[in-house]
């Protein structure tokens, strides 16, 4: 525990008992009380029966990482205590029902665990409402432990069940009973939070997938087609829910092949289009990806990664798809790959990727993952003002030149684009190699000219896309190299380093993964040309087993990053283990 308040609350029980919804209520109450919350769920690829946990780390400053040490554990069943015992921090509190679960004082002694028994069963039997009300009782009890005002929780419950007055009454009763039971008996000194309630609209508790959805809507998305696949499904569902209200067309397609081709059809005629899936669905989109590139159609494809191969671990996290999406689709063609580093970047890239797709007329792939996509965190409202709509070389009927050629060879690789429906713009969009007009061609000269033209787009884009960003000093003793969703955990870990290490570690973070500028990477990692890291260590951190960014960096720059921290057990990096790894490299 630092000088400031930061604690982790965790609730565990059987899958299917609304644990997550309960947790979100708790997190929101903390948020509205002026704190920052960041969550993490572990749930199996099952509907019921498996073990489910939901945890929130709450702090006075923003939180972007999962903490392993649990300060308050709500155990809805015995399994939770067994399973999570090793995670409890010294002096942690365990909220449980001693009528159902035995937890001996002896067991608690070593870690000085505080037992907080709440008669869940008795309370729900008395007030009615079924098993699911245990969660609400537990939240009431938890709130009391940290002196979170009951009114705040009641307020959220009231908003949540606005359409169901009965549910409001029942839940509030459950909250109160849990709260009352704890209030007088227990308190937890270190965790008592300083309340500086903030206006409701000042903060959001939102997941990466939803942020991406809002970003895309801000960016003018017109069309979305997809097929459900964990952990991308909430992207799809976000659009499904907003379609009518926001005037976009949403289609649940029969499979992912259809989804990508539908989205391409919509994009072809001028709609801003997107599809989203996880790796398995993306594997079905490879041919479409190539068609998108060769027909020069602007399209955004989202891959919310989970551990593969095949069905893998559907509800867990991984960064194993980088090389896969970079090379998906037969043959050679340009694409842009970007991976948001946090929830804010999900929003930004959700909007900006639509511009890139249109400016360079190619597929843009966004690589998120379960950790970022399904994880909720506290953010301030997004930078809406910075969103722009850039449609690149899009023609209007009036600006279509005589003898219009859709695939005209240009210096920057991008050719002016007419849309079906426009007079005098008729062209042929071909999945075969083609002439400038778009007729199929097998001439060596057409082939080479078009391959080269398409390839030039990446050179053009490279000048405009954000370069890898260095967080921290250029002179740091240790440079961590990472991409995408590990940004938050790594930056939090750097912040949590012992004082003596402060200022000694930087993070070189890649948001754009392709195209890469090998020379620029050399410049950022080498102290002198050819001399890597004189007196300085470079460490690669990836949530996969091959160190794929490391492979690409070596391929493009020749630099081999020998020190690697790779995690591929389906879990994201916990901040404590990162602190440990970093410390190790500093010693």
């Amino acid at each position, binding site marked *: 525990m630092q000088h400031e308040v930061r604690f982790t609350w965790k609730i565990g029980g059987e899958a299917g008992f609304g644990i997550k919804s309960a947790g979100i209520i708790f997190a929101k109450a903390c948020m509205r009380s002026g704190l920052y919350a960041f969550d993490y769920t572990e749930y199996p690829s099952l509907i019921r029966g498996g073990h489910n946990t939901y945890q929130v780390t709450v702090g006075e400053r923003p939180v972007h990482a999962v903490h392993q040490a649990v300060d308050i554990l709500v155990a809805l069943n015995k399994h939770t205590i067994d399973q999570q015992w090793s995670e409890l921090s010294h002096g942690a509190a365990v909220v449980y029902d001693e009528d159902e679960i035995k937890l001996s004082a002896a067991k608690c002694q070593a870690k000085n665990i505080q037992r907080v028994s709440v008669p869940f069963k008795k309370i729900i039997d008395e007030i009615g409402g079924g098993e699911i009300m245990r969660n609400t009782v537990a939240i009431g009890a938890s709130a009391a432990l940290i002196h979170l005002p009951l009114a705040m929780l009641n307020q959220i419950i009231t908003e949540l069940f606005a359409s169901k007055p009965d549910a409001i009454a029942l839940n509030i009763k459950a909250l109160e009973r849990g709260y009352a039971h704890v209030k007088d008996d227990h308190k937890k000194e270190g965790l008592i939070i300083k309340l500086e309630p903030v206006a409701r609209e000042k903060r959001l508790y939102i997941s990466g997938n939803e942020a991406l959805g809002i970003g895309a809507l801000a960016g*003018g998305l017109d069309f979305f087609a997809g097929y459900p696949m964990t952990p991308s499904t909430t992207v799809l569902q976000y659009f499904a829910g907003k379609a009518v209200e926001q005037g976009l*067309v949403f289609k649940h397609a029969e499979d992912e092949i259809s989804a990508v081709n*539908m989205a391409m059809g919509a994009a072809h*005629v001028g709609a801003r289009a997107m599809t989203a899936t996880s790796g398995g669905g993306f594997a079905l989109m490879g041919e*479409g990806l190539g068609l998108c590139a060769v027909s020069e159609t602007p399209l955004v494809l989202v891959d919310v990664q989970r551990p593969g191969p095949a069905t893998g671990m559907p509800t867990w996290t991984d960064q194993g798809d980088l090389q896969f999406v970079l090379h998906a689709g037969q043959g050679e063609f340009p694409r842009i790959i970007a991976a948001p580093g946090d929830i804010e970047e999900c929003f930004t890239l959700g909007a900006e990727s639509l511009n890139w797709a249109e400016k360079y007329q190619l597929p843009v792939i966004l690589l998120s993952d379960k950790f970022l996509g399904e994880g909720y965190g506290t953010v301030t409202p997004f930078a809406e003002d910075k*969103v722009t709509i850039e449609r690149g070389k899009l023609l209007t009927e009036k600006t279509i030149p005589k003898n219009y050629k859709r695939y005209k060879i240009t210096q920057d690789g991008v050719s002016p684009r007419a849309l079906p429906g426009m007079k005098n*713009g008729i*062209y042929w969009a071909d999945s075969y190699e083609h002439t400038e007009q778009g007729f199929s061609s097998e001439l060596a000269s057409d082939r080479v000219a078009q391959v080269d033209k398409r390839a030039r787009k990446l050179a053009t884009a490279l000048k405009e896309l954000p370069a890898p960003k260095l967080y921290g000093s250029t002179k740091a003793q240790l440079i961590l190299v990472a991409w995408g969703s590990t940004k938050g955990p790594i930056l939090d870990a750097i912040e949590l380093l012992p004082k003596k290490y402060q200022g000694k570690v930087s993070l070189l973070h890649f948001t754009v993964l392709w195209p890469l500028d090998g020379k620029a990477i050399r410049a950022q990692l080498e102290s002198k040309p050819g001399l890597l890291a004189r007196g300085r260590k470079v460490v690669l951190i990836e949530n996969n087993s091959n160190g794929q960014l490391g492979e690409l960096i070596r391929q493009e720059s020749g630099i081999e990053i020998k020190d690697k921290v790779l995690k591929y057990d389906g879990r994201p990096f916990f901040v404590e283990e990162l602190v440990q790894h970093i410390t190790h490299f500093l010693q």
Partner: protein
Amino acid sequence: MAIEKFNTICSPTWCPGCGNYSIWNEIKRALDELGIPQHKTLIVYGIGCAGNMYNTINTYAWHSLHGRSIPTAVGAKLANKDLTVIAVAGDGDALGEGMAHFIHALRGNVNITYLVHENKVYGLTTGQTAPTSEKGFVSKSTPEGVIEVTTNPVSLALAAGGGFIARGYAGKPQQLKDLIKLGISHRGFSFVDILQPCVTFNKINTYPYYNERVYDLQAEKHVTNDWGAAMGKAREWGERIPTGVFYQDKREAYEDDLPQEKGKPLAERVVVKRQVRTLYKEFN
């Protein structure tokens, strides 16, 4: 002739005598007679001999992937409902690689027209069996003859919930043109199965074969709003082969059910930044 405006600088490359020539001509005639402006027409072509029509019609065109003409056509139509969208596919395209899209398009009922060139063989890959090949058909991939039951696209289309189902024949151009026009005019997904002799790789289902057998359902007063009767006719194949409209219903097209499709086509609206502040509420 007026249909010359539909020609391009490219000539078709089909074998002399191929049924595709006739289909090509009748598509152009149908478009011409319907008076749909060329630039308001998007034809999505599959990959195969049928799809090779791509280079030779002067409207907006998309050469899709083998089997995938439907989804692209559906996406395009949903994004610009003012376009006349037609998908042209081979029978391998439509019923082999693309089977799932076909069945789902029939239930989805987006207002596009699907023309399937049924030559009962894979033409462009030089003569393997198609799902429509007759039992026993000897091809390069079935040298001992086809074992599987023949796919009947018309009865499948009926079972899948199709709202406009017809069959034409390359050897009856006038009727074929009329069927294409009816299909385009139908509001919803329209499917025209087109019997198309492949003179190179199919020595069974030839012009003489069809000439002897085809008859016009409409000439025989077949009623097109009776599903059961349609299914009865759909299953007729042998001495007599029915052509014409099997079935037509009056249900709404998919996009008619979407409030967000009212007004200007999606793709013609000016793309502007959406104010998303209102979306924050559920997250506060």
